[in-house]
């Protein structure tokens, strides 16, 4: 199903024309209105008129998360506060939060993006959608809220947390669509079954839109199996607009980027060079239509690959692969680059192991060590030490094969790894690196 078929299936040439027109406009706008951009452009000796083709974007400076922190709170706004109707912030766990400002038109744009995304996976006005992303400064809750309302679906603004109530709402209201983080979805399924004696697959849920953290195909299978639903991947970030920058279609083969509003590039995170299509690298986004806070070449830190081949769903818009890692999340252990998703994939390949794990990094004798703690599940527990030891070794072997570094797997008691209601904390770095 299409929300805006004309755009979603747009002819490529026309799309590029539209993007170029918008790119020229936005570059001119930020140069004239945002001193931060003017300074950066001037330093590089580039004027808005120099942008003649889409390819010329490579002459523009990148914008980083660090730039955004320096501009805190409103330094990147391109409109006076009188035109800003809403602000959101990132969690700010690693410093000052990033502030995003939205004009009324930006909010409408956001709703349009989510409406396209949800319609793409078959959500209609007849659905009851429970939004279990946090409402408030976090973009997840309100972004989905605006879009689901635009479609005309019945919105249950449950927000994050209060797990028992979430399940009661699902059961009593007959929720058909859920939107939350994938780790919270798994927690909901576990809680329903074990704490409330409710079989999650007996609920009326049909599909879910999951994002705001890294997850894997294995996790998707688990969520789909436990709830008996179709699970789709959503992508977005506060700096650009929030959720809805890209979303999976029923082909589940990459996330369509709404390219009429976002211009994407893939770069080499080390050199900043643009990479050819199909190569893995860091996603860079320029928001073409934002009024309140347009972004020029924002370095997302997200690692992915861009594909332009035609999709089975009929959309012509490019797709990004599931985010593979965050260049910030990337851990370097004994010089080897490791992403948590690799470890997760490896442990979930072992039958009966629960997707609850934690990675602990230590450096006991000048050498990094990785410990992967995995919860013991009923399914794999045995009265025999040898059987458990074999399981542990099997897990170690799988993870080692996946990451290429020796790891130690420790089996821990069920529920001993903290559950999160938002983003799961997977890595504990005790290395004391200076």
């Amino acid at each position, binding site marked *: 199903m299409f929300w805006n078929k004309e755009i979603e299936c747009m002819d490529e040439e026309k799309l590029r024309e539209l993007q170029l027109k918008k790119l020229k406009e936005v570059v001119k706008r930020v140069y004239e209105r945002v001193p931060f951009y003017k300074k950066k452009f001037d330093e590089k000796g580039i004027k808005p008129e120099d942008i003649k083709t889409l390819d010329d974007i490579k002459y523009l400076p990148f914008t980083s998360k660090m730039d955004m922190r320096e501009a805190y709170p409103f330094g990147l706004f391109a409109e006076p506060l009188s035109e800003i109707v809403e602000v959101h912030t990132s969690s700010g766990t690693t410093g000052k939060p990033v502030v995003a400002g939205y004009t009324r038109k930006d909010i409408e744009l956001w709703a349009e993006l989510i409406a396209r995304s949800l319609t793409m996976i078959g959500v209609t006005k007849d659905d009851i959608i429970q939004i279990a992303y946090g409402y408030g400064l976090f973009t997840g809750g309100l972004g989905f809220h605006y879009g689901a309302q635009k479609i005309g679906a019945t919105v249950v603004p449950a927000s994050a947390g209060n797990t028992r109530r979430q399940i009661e709402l699902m059961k009593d209201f007959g929720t058909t669509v859920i939107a939350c983080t994938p780790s919270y979805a798994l927690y909901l399924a576990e809680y329903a079954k074990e704490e409330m004696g409710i079989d999650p697959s007996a609920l009326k849920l049909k599909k879910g839109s999951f994002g705001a953290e890294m997850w894997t195909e294995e996790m998707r299978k688990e969520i789909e199996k436990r709830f008996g639903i179709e699970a789709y991947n959503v992508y977005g970030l506060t700096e650009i607009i929030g959720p809805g920058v890209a979303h999976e279609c029923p082909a589940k083969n990459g996330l369509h980027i709404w390219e009429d509003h976002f211009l994407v590039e893939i770069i080499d995170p080390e050199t900043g060079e643009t990479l050819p299509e199909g190569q893995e690298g860091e996603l860079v986004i320029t928001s073409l239509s934002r009024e309140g806070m347009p972004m020029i070449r924002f370095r997302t830190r997200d690692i992915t690959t861009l594909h332009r081949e035609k999709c089975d769903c009929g959309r012509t818009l490019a797709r990004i692969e599931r985010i593979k890692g965050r260049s910030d999340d990337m851990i370097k252990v004994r010089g080897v680059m490791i992403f948590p998703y690799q470890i997760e994939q490896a442990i979930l390949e072992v039958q009966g192991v629960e997707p609850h794990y934690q990675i602990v990094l230590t450096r006991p004798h000048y050498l990094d060590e990785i410990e992967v703690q995995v919860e013991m599940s009923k399914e794999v527990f045995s*009265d025999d030490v*040898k059987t*458990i030891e074999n399981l542990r070794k099997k897990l170690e072997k799988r993870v080692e094969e996946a990451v290429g570094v020796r790891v130690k797997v420790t*089996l821990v*008691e*069920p529920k001993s790894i903290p559950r999160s209601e938002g983003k799961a904390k997977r890595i504990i770095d005790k290395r004391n690196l200076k």
Partner: protein
Amino acid sequence: MKIKQISVFLENKKGRLYEALKAVADKNINIRALSIADTSEFGILRMIVNNPEEAKKALEENGFTTKITNVIAVGVKDEPGGLAEILKYLYDADINVEYIYAFVEKSKEKAVVVLKTNNLDKSISILQEKGVHLLSWDDILKL
């Protein structure tokens, strides 16, 4: 002739054994025999209790992973070589003993030993053939 044993996964962490035993004690369940298999990372607590199903429930309510498995309980002559003789029967029949531990109580003049082998049915028939005393669940409850 099989009897039920409950096994509990224990992380090597302070207080976990105590908490497991307390969960069982709080339900007034009596432990008849107990052993702990431990590695540097984790342990497996194995118990024969008077009410295994109830113990399982109590432990799981307290967040423990448990499993009920069948084992056999053998009456062993309380004299030198008593246990060795029984093990010889199993060895001759090519049966592997996975683990073994003893009851605190005695049954008359016999010590009671819990055995888990790689083939319980065959172990039972061999031992019965050789006239070894196997305890039934009722015998266990009466100890």
